[in-house]
């Protein structure tokens, strides 16, 4: 038994690591992608280009404009002269927002009347638009407070709220993104690489020869998956090392528990990929199937969009998403330092997924050509 498995493993590892392109795909691509994605994908909105249309042109409006500029959220790239101009530059996408001061703003403030400042935001990216509004209103609130204090010597608000962000004090998105990206890269590489493992041999024709040998079904399947399991683990470890060196991400929880969850997670992907491979006839077919599975798995995992915001039916659907459990366990352990008792739900579902896919894939693979 072990002898045949050894022969199979040696062959698979040699095939995988001999090809320089394959070495690249297995080891470096996930890390490079992680780095690129980290810088590209960020929800923090900074340096938004906005325009100012100032019909008042007084010290007050200039002061507010300066405050907007100094906030760090905005880059004032245009001082427009008319509403038409605002529309034009917004259509072109030169700016994503505009702040408009009506004539007589300073005068009305001096008269203690209520003043409107109009904010226009590009609603195409609804999330960004909301952020622009809240940032602007934050700046205006600040101005009001300063103004009230100057006039009355009292604070403008009686109740002031002070917030503290647990686990991630500075709301720095990398603590969330880096572990998330790692779980996604694990899924993508494991599934894509393994899904062509069996079908490739079908296409070349070598599988026929292997099937007439006394190698057992289990030896064949383990021989096909173990190399990817090993390389998957190595890549993941490298990604965490990189995360520590480049982004200062420290694993708060138990590394042993993390390793266990990652192992189970990789195994569930390998089982799923073998299932794809065993039921495909060509490599294209396998890759396409894998692709269509990867898309919803990453979108519904909770990494990109919060599961709680999804319709209830879809929330139940996410239980079937293997990435959800890997993602929740990994971010839990890495960011919150969660222990096994916090992760019993993830443990249950992850184990169920892993067992289901591995057993089903072994059943699906037959040692004949029917």
């Amino acid at each position, binding site marked *: 038994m072990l002898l045949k498995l*050894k022969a199979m493993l040696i*062959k698979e590892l040699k*095939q995988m690591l001999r090809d320089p392109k394959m070495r690249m795909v297995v080891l470096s691509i996930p890390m490079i992608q992680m780095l690129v994605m980290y810088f590209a994908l960020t929800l923090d909105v900074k340096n938004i280009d906005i325009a100012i249309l100032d019909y008042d042109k007084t010290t007050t409006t200039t002061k507010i404009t300066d405050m907007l500029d100094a906030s760090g959220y905005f880059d004032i790239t245009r001082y427009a002269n008319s509403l038409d101009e605002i529309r034009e530059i917004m259509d072109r996408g030169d700016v994503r927002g505009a702040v408009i001061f009506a004539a007589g703003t300073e005068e009305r403030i001096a008269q203690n009347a209520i003043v409107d400042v109009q904010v226009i935001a590009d609603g195409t990216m609804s999330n960004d638009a909301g952020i622009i509004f809240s940032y602007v209103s934050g700046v205006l609130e600040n101005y009001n407070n300063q103004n009230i204090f100057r006039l009355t010597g009292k604070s403008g608000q009686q109740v002031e709220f002070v917030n503290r962000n647990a686990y991630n004090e500075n709301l720095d998105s990398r603590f969330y993104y880096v572990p998330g990206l790692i779980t996604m890269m694990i899924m993508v590489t494991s599934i894509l690489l393994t899904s062509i493992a069996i079908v490739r041999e079908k296409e070349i*024709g*070598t599988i026929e*020869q292997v099937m*007439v040998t006394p190698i*057992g079904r289990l030896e064949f399947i383990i021989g096909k998956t173990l190399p990817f399991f090993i390389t998957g683990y190595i890549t993941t470890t490298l990604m965490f090392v990189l995360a520590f060196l480049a982004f200062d991400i420290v694993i708060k929880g138990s590394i042993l528990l993390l390793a266990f969850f990652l192992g189970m997670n990789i195994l569930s992907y390998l089982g799923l990929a073998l299932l794809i491979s065993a039921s495909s006839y060509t490599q294209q077919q396998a890759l396409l199937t894998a692709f269509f599975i990867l898309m919803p798995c990453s979108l519904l995992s909770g990494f990109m969009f919060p599961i709680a915001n999804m319709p209830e039916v879809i929330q139940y659907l996410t239980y079937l998403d293997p990435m959800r459990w890997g993602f929740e366990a990994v971010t839990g352990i890495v960011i919150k330092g969660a222990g096994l008792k916090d992760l019993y739900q993830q443990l249950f579902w992850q184990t169920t997924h892993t067992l289901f896919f591995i057993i089903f894939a072994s059943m699906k693979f037959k040692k004949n050509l029917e």
Partner: protein
Amino acid sequence: MENNNLAVDARSLSKSFKSLKAVDKITLQVKTGEIYGVIGPDGAGKTTLLRMLTGILTPDSGESLICGYSSQINNREVKNHLAYMSQKFGLYSDLTVYENIRLYADLYGVAKATRDEQIDKLLDFSYMRPFKNRRAGKLSGGMKQKLQLICALIHKPQVLLLDEPTNGVDPVSRRDFWRILYDLVSEGVTIVVSTAYLDEAERCSRIGLMNNGIIVAEGSPQEVIEKSDMTIGSIKTDNNKHNLKTVQQLLPDNNVHLLGDRIRFTSDDIKSISIKLNKSFQGIAITEEPPMLEDIFMSFQEARDNTDVLSLVSQGIENKSGSSVTTKKITKRFGDFTAVNSIDLDVKYGEIYGFLGPNGAGKSTTIKMLCGLLTPSSGQGMVGGFDVTKKPEKIKENIGYMSQKFSLYEDLRIYENIDFYGGIYGLQGKQLAKRRDWALELSGLTERKKEMTSNLAGGWRQRLALACSILHSPSIVFLDEPTSGADPASRRLFWDIINRLAGSGVTVFVSTHYMEEAEYCDRLAMIFRGNMIAHGTPQELKENYMRDDIINIRVAEPQKHMNTLANINSINNVALFGAGLHVRTNDTNSSLNSINDYFTSNGAKAKTSLIQPSMEDVFVSLIDSAEDEND
């Protein structure tokens, strides 16, 4: 352009791959309307030469002209005058026959107005019209090759380059294919064809024998044979297969081999050979016979002494007796289609059992059922004492199987492939090292063991695949067209190995399209459309299933006489055979008279003789009558 009459004019073409000189300063000139055969052992450089002529491979030095245009400089013009058929299947399996041809027509810009007319003409010409709307993937091997040819012909090329077009094609389809080639030549097309079948080489107007990248002999087949100054002797013994080993030991340097019903050898000195042979075979009569192209072919290759290798073949094989493979009404259906219909077999240990039949007849399906790769739909089968339906995994421990498909990993080194298959057959340590050396020796790849398998030419791969499939000394071996596309030397080695295996008690199941190989089998089964239409020893098949007599005609340009001869009443069938014709008749005397009359009036020099039917005649005749019954 010095000579307008030259369709192909190549001057000192050379091409090297790393340290290997694939083609070394070859000069090749083919006249318009010739069929030029490129013959040579595996890896001689045939494919490289053809690719350079087409212009898809740039030579390191030299130039080639096709119809006066340079393949290297004026590639566009060359493409309009030339068609090339590579060894790979270049058709779209999901498109129908018609759609495939139309695609090629459009690619070549054939005018729409005449396109369909041209397609129909080609379909009729190749008898493919009934299959016009069949998907290419569902065609048999022979029909696929014909379709490839049609696609290559759609733009009416003047020069046709064919790279082993009939590999793995059955004799009936091969005859058909050659008839088409002859028709094309009569229309003025020039053909350069590489082939591993030497009977096809005999049909060429001229041949070039290639070895190690150079042309070592050139001329008409007859010239090449005459120039060689070779003499061949043969003997007939009561048990050729048994006596072969003895003769090989007596005449170690004389290329001793089996052919049909006799043992042949080169005999430069009949007297001394006679003395040597008389040691073991007293008073044996040596018949002198004319050399064949195959003999010339063999003489150009370094003689390899395989005695040591062969003596290792039988190592570790358990000697068993009795039945090894039995089936009762074994049947396989795929949906409505019955691929194998109720076949009964009873094969003993030590027997060589041959499977013959056209492409798609059900040979491979039967073999796959016996190997446990396919489950029979009904009926029973026992292989090595185990039931094929219930214990397929047990069977797999005891058999060796070599599939038609490529069974080696191209991205592994040669020795790594052996180690892998050895490993999954449970070999390790010293045992594995011993078998590895043996397999390398057997496939002749000891010096190349560290090369990547993807570097190997066709025939070498097959040797390696065979060695890998018998690494574990199985007592039953299934070989599915093992010699397809291999050169004569490789084929002889294969059959030496097969004979040795059988000699040590192994059952060898083998399917083949080489009819002369069928003669080496102890028993044969002829499979046609899933049914076993004949079985028995080669001699029995010839005697029991052949109702007609065969008249052999040696005549120049035999294709020109085929139609007239076929119209003679007493003649049932006329077919190309080697360089001549075989006529099948049930009224020998009247046919002989008519044939002789025809050739006298026509003035052609022809030699006719009544001969014992060859295996190919039996095959074609059986398929013909089975088709008549079916239709």
